[in-house]
């Protein structure tokens, strides 16, 4: 089996490539023209396909001999329009190319950000509501882009009769990516810990990559939407403590109850900021909730559909994140 992986040199992508190789899948890695790959240490069997999804004209060639597409590419920085173009328009162009090929299967990397946290109570799972239109346009650029990327992909899959697996990872963490937006607000070296006992919907990058490789190879993933978290998640206070210790970054942690923080944000939004949407995300109630609302998260459907258990437990993940780097 041969897989085409977009965003292959990204934080998740490089681990997905490794996980696919470990399962004996041939990999064609799509990376941008100027991407530097030396440090990744990929074996020579990884076929490199250089293209920019926003502009390259030769995307159809990338699908020659490909059985499954793992679409991980997304723009996660820059302005809202840059993220939309780099994530959504790029996906349109990629899937247009796929439609002219014989490839019929794809695995999309979506995100927890597509869920409407404000309308979700107690447990967030695959049945939780997504952002409605036009509310979605009041969210941040990343959320709008990921929401639209999933929408575009589902439409293509339906029109073309493709077999689509949508994986929605929670906060992905790993080496050099230990600090998560779910941890609250950083003030220099110090932290406002909002809702210190809230559990984080988190997945270690190597566990997450294992799910992608499994979904690419396992036909049971077809036509499924699966949340990807390693388990119920660590509590913010204890994970932040592990992160600060592991990364050697000392600082104070000030705990603030969630109800007090969201109450203050709501009051300030309605009075001082007069419902302005150009203020920082953490000061906009709905965006605040998407980062910090205390909910229960689980991976029951993932476990039941694919029989998956995380290859690494939390302690092993900590060691792989903050311990000495494994030799290549």
């Amino acid at each position, binding site marked *: 089996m041969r897989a085409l992986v977009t965003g292959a040199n990204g934080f998740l992508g490089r681990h997905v490539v490794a996980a696919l190789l470990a399962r004996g899948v041939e990999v064609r890695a799509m990376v*941008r*023209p*100027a*991407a530097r790959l030396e440090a990744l240490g990929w074996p020579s069997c990884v076929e490199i396909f250089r293209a*920019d999804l*926003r*502009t390259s004209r030769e995307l159809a060639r990338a699908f020659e001999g490909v059985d499954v597409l793992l679409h991980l590419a997304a723009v996660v*920085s*820059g*302005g809202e*329009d*840059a993220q*939309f*173009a780099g994530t*959504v*328009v790029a996906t*349109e162009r990629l899937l247009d190319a796929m439609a002219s090929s014989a490839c019929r299967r794809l695995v999309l990397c979506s995100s927890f950000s597509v869920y409407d946290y404000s309308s979700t109570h107690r447990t967030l799972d695959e049945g939780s509501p997504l952002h409605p*239109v*036009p509310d979605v*346009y009041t969210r941040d650029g990343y959320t*709008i882009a990921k929401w*639209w990327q999933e*929408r*575009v992909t589902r439409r293509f899959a339906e029109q073309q009769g493709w077999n689509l697996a949508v994986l929605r990872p929670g906060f992905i963490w790993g080496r050099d990516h230990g600090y998560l937006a779910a941890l609250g607000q950083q003030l220099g070296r110090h932290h406002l810990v909002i809702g210190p006992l809230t559990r984080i919907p988190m997945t270690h990058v190597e566990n997450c990559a294992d799910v992608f490789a499994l979904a690419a190879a396992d036909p049971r993933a077809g036509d499924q939407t699966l949340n990807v978290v390693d388990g119920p998640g660590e509590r913010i206070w204890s994970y932040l403590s592990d992160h600060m210790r592991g990364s050697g970054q000392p600082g104070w942690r000030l705990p603030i109850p969630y109800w007090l923080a969201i109450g203050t944000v709501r009051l300030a939004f309605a009075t001082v*900021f*007069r419902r*302005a949407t*150009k*203020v920082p995300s953490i000061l906009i109630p709905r965006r605040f909730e998407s980062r910090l609302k205390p909910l229960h998260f689980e991976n029951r459907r993932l476990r039941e559909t694919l029989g998956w258990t995380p290859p690494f437990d939390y302690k092993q993940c900590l060691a792989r994140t903050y311990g000495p780097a494994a030799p290549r």
Partner: protein
Amino acid sequence: MKAALIGAGQIARQHLTCLQTLPGVELTAICDLSPATAEAAAERYGIRAWFTDHRAMLEKARPDVVHVTTPPTSHFRLAMDSFDAGAHVIVEKPATSTFEELEALVRRAQEGGRHVIEDHNYVFNRAPQEILRRIKSGEFGAVTHVEVLICLDILGPNGFADPNSPHPALTLAGGAIADFLPHLASLAHRFVGPHRTAQTVWTKRKPSPLPFDEFRGIVDGERGTAALSFSSSSQPDALWLRVYGERMQATANLFETRLTFDGPRNVPKPLRPFLSGLAEGKAIRRAALATLLRKFKGPGTYEGLWELLTRTYRALADGSGLPVTASDVLEVNRMVEALKPREQRP
């Protein structure tokens, strides 16, 4: 009045947000080559119809005004098709890739009794408008010289200098800086009139995909002189406008709300610099607060675009004078042509 827009990218957001606030203007259709981009804009701004083919949009929506906000090389074709459909055209700068195209565009507009308005947004920011008001009232005195300096880091990897995807502006003579020449020229033109001669220096300080990253120009205008500059290396980002009159001088940063005047004071001469300094400090402190507050809501730096669109629609509705006329567009772009480099590389 029915408005439609072609090219739902970054600057389109400012056009659409402003149009939503204008009385008597109905946003009827939007077009983009990307179906998702067009549909998302239609949903966000409550626009009834979206298209991926501009000709189909023009035929079905029959707009009175078309906003062309695509990359510059496509402006000419889209504007011509819009004139064929009987619409006025508001086009982002630069209006066309070449001056010949612009002349053809203006000719076609005039033949059909339509208007072409190029976005000279910074001219309509509050600061230049206040300076122009004082010039008109005689308080400022005749303008002798104007300086416009844009300091903007355009060498970052996510914009004009993206190493993965060549930016469309790089095809223009002068590369990315050519995208800013209409700003420099439109401000100079407003204060010192059409140019008679121009001298330029185009250089490159740092390695990047851009052909040039620094520009200096001296313009001899009909009513005064202008020094126009663009610097990719000077920080922080700013758009400095300095206007020198026979009675007063004005300084503004159009990326912020800062505007200060220095002029005659009815005090003993040695005290004038002292009192001027105090007045300037007060104005700067006020502007600092205003700049912070405008980050929360409203058009921000694009206040001039909103003002230009407001005045344009008012003029189109009641037949009064347009804020940017065809001769303004031609004269500004004639100056732009004179500022362009003779060679594609330094």
